[in-house]
């Protein structure tokens, strides 16, 4: 549990620090203005990477569950609740 939070914090730092540096470096003089296109789209791509990663995990889980626990799977066995007949 702590390991997961720790890894998460490290990852977050690794991603936030470079982006903050990038925009802090933007100044107020001509030629050095913030490029809003770059900044906004880079946030978008970062979030897409996270969203697709989570998406693959969730979809993969759904596909695995459906295949493994369908009643026609050779490994399928009755649930404990089928004995009493109430669930």
């Amino acid at each position, binding site marked *: 549990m702590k390991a997961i939070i720790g890894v998460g914090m490290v990852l977050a730092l690794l991603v936030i620090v470079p982006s903050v540096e990038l925009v802090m470096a933007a100044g107020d003089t001509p030629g050095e203005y913030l490029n809003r296109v770059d*900044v*906004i*789209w880079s*946030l*978008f791509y970062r*979030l*897409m990477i996270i*969203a697709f990663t*989570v*998406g693959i995990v*969730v*979809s993969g*889980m*759904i596909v695995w*569950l*459906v295949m493994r*626990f*369908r*009643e026609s799977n050779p490994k*399928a*066995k*009755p*649930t*404990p*609740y*089928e004995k009493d*007949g*109430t*669930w």
Partner: protein
Amino acid sequence: MVLELQKPRPIWQIMFSTHHTDVGLLYLITSLAFMFMGGALALLLRVELFSPGVQLIADSMTYNRIFTVHGTTLIFLFILPSASAFGNYLVPIMVRYKDMAYPKLNAVAFWMIPPAGALIWLGFADFTWYAYPTYSVISAPGPAADMWIFGLKILGVSSILGAINFVVTIMKCKHPDLPLSKMPLLAWSYLTSSLIILVAVPTFAAALLMLLTDRLGASGFFNPAMGGDPIAYQHLFWFTFHPEVYILVIPAIGFMYEIFPRFSRKPIFSHGSGVTAFTLLAIVGFSSWAHHMYASGMSFTEKTVFMVGTLAAVPASAMHTFNFLATMWGGRIKFATPIMWAVGGIALFFSAGAGGVVNAAMPLDFVSHDTYWVVGHFHLFVMGTILFGTVGFIYYMFPYVTGRMYNETMGKIHFILSFVGTVLVFFTQHILGLFGMPRRIYDYPAIPEWVQMNIIISIGAFIIGIAMAIFLGNLIWSSAKGKPADMDDPFGLGGKYYFPYQAKNPSH
């Protein structure tokens, strides 16, 4: 069973009935009729958008009217009544009471829907389902606009009356031996969505009245020429309609809470988690409304507050997904049509939510606001989650309502075509939005990427259209000529479920 077509009851018996099964059936038939009508409008839109230039619709005003009525119909005349349909049918059974708390009020709430629907369809307003001023005040043509306002007023009252009925039935009429903590999650979904209705909908009733008096020139609430503020309407509107989207989705999730355990042959993973998730969502859902208004000129602090409110609702929704997957784990699942729809619905629910998180991030909203990204996002919720959950539940309840089984092969084909079509249409719309195509436009310049994607989307929409035609055929044919179902266990799952789906209709 209430719809035995081979020995039909006199139609006035159903129409004048106040019994919860008959009112439920009336809601169901009405909502399905509007589903097909609203869906047909979408097909008209997609024919027109197939490529640049005029395909079918000769002028932009007609196009604008069609998308307005499409959205208004499917939200107010399909999703809400279909939730009421199954609520009316099942909530009294689930709380072990003989009927809803106020049967006559129940029938009145239903009978408000056809006249409201008539007002909306005969008027055919053009100002989008939001009806934002100042367009709706100074520019939208009447009497269409006024008819829409009256129609929605009536629907709002109908919603509130229905919600009162559900809350009183569940809280006051439930059997003394049934604690709330053991009440089925589907009943919980009606309780929470009804409570949201009671808090959220009156605000819009006020906004509609103000819009009407503004249109008549008697007031200037939203008209700057008379000292008003158009943004005030947006706050009132979204204060109602952001929680409204939870009102729409919560019953559909409730349907899935019936389908997953039943077909997995094990109980829901965690009843408490479901209750917590519904309650949390109902409360937190009120804190995010102005994320629809990020581009209207709000300050940085305001936008931050609403972003936090939006993101705070995500864990509650995520809990339902976990619950469903954990229920399937270790089960022995019979993949009949209802659970196929439920599984498809959950997969699309996740994609919808993920896209929504992107919108919630304030700077990203500048990319996606009012583009096809938003259209794709919310359709993944209303079609992908709500319609999939509702249709799955219609198939599930079909034998109990009609006494006959639907055609299973056609049901599966309906699912596969709908899923493929939904992905083709709404995932592509996300990308189209990223390329900048605005929503609510009758025609578009021949930008190559826009053209290619619009073709794909229109083809996907036609696939959904074919699937829905198959559904309509299956519903009608099977109601009359389907194989009689084993009423104790129509799906051959075994076991005895914890509440009987059989409702005793006094006329049978």
